[in-house]
């Protein structure tokens, strides 16, 4: 299950709770990846739209892959505005041994960036501007424009 929050994530609460939730399952490795909004290009923060139905099915497919390796994934993301130095994203993997966890966190976060139906906007001078240059077309995009 993906956890979605309005505004910035409460990082200590989430990563501590996840740790406690899995404490009895004999996982030897827990690797969280925490994404924090950086101060750059004079932005005041970022803002996010999330399309939950497809995000959930994307995540569930990843969870099946993780389970096949004896691992478990968790994820939290923000909706709406997140200011600089606040965090908008946490992904985490639990696994019996480190190698699976190290490899999976990289693959999961990279596929998240390329595939998860989330749209990012810069908050700048009171405007909410789509981060088009930093966005990636989802694999298979363009069929309505003739790409097949």
């Amino acid at each position, binding site marked *: 299950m993906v956890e979605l929050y309005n505004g910035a994530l409460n990082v200590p609460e989430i990563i501590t709770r996840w740790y406690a939730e899995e404490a009895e399952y004999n996982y030897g490795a827990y690797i969280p990846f925490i994404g924090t909004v950086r101060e750059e290009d004079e932005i005041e923060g970022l803002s996010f739209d999330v*399309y939950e139905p497809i995000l959930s099915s994307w995540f569930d497919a990843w969870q099946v892959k993780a389970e096949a390796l004896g691992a478990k994934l968790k994820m939290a993301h923000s909706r709406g505005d997140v200011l600089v130095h606040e965090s908008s994203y946490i992904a985490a993997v639990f696994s019996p041994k480190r190698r699976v966890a190290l490899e999976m966190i990289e693959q999961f976060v990279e596929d998240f960036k390329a595939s*998860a139906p989330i749209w990012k906007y810069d908050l700048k001078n009171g405007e909410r501007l789509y981060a088009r240059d930093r966005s990636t077309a*989802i694999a298979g995009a363009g*069929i309505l424009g*003739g790409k097949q």
Partner: protein
Amino acid sequence: MVTVEFLGPIQKAPLTLEVSSLRDVAEALKNDSEMAQWLENCAVAVNDTLVATLDTLLKDGDKVSLLPPVCGG
């Protein structure tokens, strides 16, 4: 009727169209000047499942979603 919804940064109200395949949707949108910048980079979902071909058939009550380029995290 089929509903077409536009996600994320596409500032466009949903449409309802009398269509029977995604090809018909493509035809209906190709002359829409608001959509010119999006058709070549949007992924398409039917009832929240991504699809890969314009031959996808549509029936009454289906929902088509257009997903522009993403950037989570």
